[in-house]
């Protein structure tokens, strides 16, 4: 019964202070919309970079003169590394397969047609669990007699370093920007709620003087904060959904594989939506609850 009264009070207040409620709701809407636009964008970029990072394979070139048992010895070593978790997977690439692979990687594959014969050796392509630990894998394989002495083991130190740097940059910059947005959203919403309660501080003062307890005054405000937060966040999620359907999805369909290749990445929309709506409500509730404290000391 009390609960019903508090809800009725909150709704009354939202209606009576339309200007204020709209302001709070719009602020939540904007903040959540921006977060909702940036978080998946960031995750998308992040996963693209990650999948690039996973292409940082180690190539162990096999000497033309290696015996089958020597190659099997190398394979056993790789199995052991896979068993202790350092190696994610590995594959044997014959000389012909190697040429095809190169063809796929070249911007201008036609030059390969000019080659008189296949100059490439066979190799193991090893995908490390963590690209940053490539050195150790290389060190443990180095002495195998199957390895071609001239070509040895190649893991593109320089390229890998560059790519890892970029990946780390994007990860940190993205996390930084998202954190800034998150903190900014909370500050902005808190700010708006503070102002909206400030505009009604005399009201709160009168309630105190008439004998209302702090929680009697606070509950309707908290509920009001939750309602505004919920509505704002729900509107934002709706807007995001509309943008996703009309812009992003059609764009992905229209675009060729260049980007969609690395998808299966973005966080599931319903989950994101729920999280955003919940956080809108929580921020709204905390914002009003905490702000109110200042005006309750009469």
């Amino acid at each position, binding site marked *: *019964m*009390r609960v019903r*009264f508090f809800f009725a009070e909150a709704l*009354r*207040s939202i209606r*009576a*202070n339309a200007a204020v409620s709209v302001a709070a709701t719009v602020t939540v809407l904007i903040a959540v919309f921006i977060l909702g636009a940036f978080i998946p964008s960031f995750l998308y970029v992040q996963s693209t970079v990650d999948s690039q990072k996973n292409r940082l394979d180690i190539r162990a070139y096999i000497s033309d003169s290696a015996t089958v048992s020597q190659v099997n010895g190398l394979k056993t070593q790789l199995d052991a590394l896979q068993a202790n978790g350092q190696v994610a997977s590995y594959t044997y690439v014959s000389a012909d397969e190697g040429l095809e692979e190169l063809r796929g990687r070249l911007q201008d594959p036609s030059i390969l047609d000019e080659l008189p014969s296949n100059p490439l050796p066979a190799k193991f392509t090893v995908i490390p669990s963590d690209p940053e630990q490539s050195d150790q894998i290389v060190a443990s394989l180095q002495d195998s007699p199957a390895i071609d002495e001239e070509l040895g083991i190649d893991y593109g130190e320089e390229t890998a370093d560059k790519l890892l740097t970029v990946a780390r940059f994007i990860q940190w910059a993205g996390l930084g920007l998202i954190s800034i947005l998150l903190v900014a959203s909370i500050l902005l919403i808190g700010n708006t709620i503070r102002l909206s309660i400030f505009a*009604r501080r*005399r*009201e709160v*003062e*009168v*309630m*105190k*003087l*008439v*004998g*209302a*307890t*702090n929680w*009697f005054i606070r509950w309707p405000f908290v509920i009001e904060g939750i309602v505004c937060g919920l509505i704002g966040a729900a509107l934002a999620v709706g807007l995001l959904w509309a943008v996703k359907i009309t812009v992003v999805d059609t764009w992905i369909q229209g675009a060729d594989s260049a980007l969609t290749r690395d998808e299966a990445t973005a966080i599931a929309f319903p989950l994101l939506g729920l999280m955003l709506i919940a956080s809108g409500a929580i921020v709204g509730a905390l914002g009003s609850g905490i702000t109110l404290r200042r005006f309750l000391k*009469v």
Partner: protein
Amino acid sequence: MSTDAPSTPTEPDTPSSRVRERARRRGESLRSSDRRSVLRPGDGPMVILDGVSKEYTSDARGLDDVTLSIESGEFVFLVGPSGSGKSTFIRLLIKEFEPTAGSITVGGRNLQRLRRSKVPYLRRSIGCVFQDYKLLAGRTVYENVAYALQVIGENPRSTRRKVPEILALVGLSDKSDRYPNELSGGEQQRVSIARAFVNHPRLLIADEPTGNLDPETSIGIMQLLYRINRTGTTVIMATHDREMVDKMQMRVIALENGKVVRDQRQASYARADS
């Protein structure tokens, strides 16, 4: 015209019979509104001030070493020139702020020792008509009065019964859906009065409750206060209405520059010897 009304409080007209009806229900209501009251029952003094001073700032003195006591069931007029400390006195009683010196006891409770969380319960046991009305701007007349009942957890049914009753008593039945800014000054004042009365407090404090009322309406309000006092409620009323004070011949406490300059029973507005 009917300036003699306060002295004959039991004539059988309609508002008066309503008041008796109200008084009859009083026992039950008192219990419900006092459910968590911090005031101690008993017949000791309702209000005791002991050497109370209130300095707002070093150069603004509201009350200056006031010592007095008001018995349960008394009717007291608080008079004095503008800025003499009447409102300060009243605001101290509801613990709107602390005195800078001295101690205040209301209903057997020392206010300094009253925990902050108990203050709302103190205020519920005191009905207060504020000089500037202090109505909730976002609520209608009805809702403003009902709020005082909702605060004490009165059930909705009895709220729906009591509010129209009290609004009729102050002559605002037809304006219960108006917002405060849609009322005349005097009408707002009467809403404030209705809100202070509605939950039958044991102590009723009114800060110039007739300042914006015409003489006839003022007399109606005075009748009401007088009748409430007769049912045992202590009434403290700050006023500038010389005619009214002279007619009632009740206890008068006169303030000047924050000091009590006169405290006299059955007195007039001005000093008898002047």
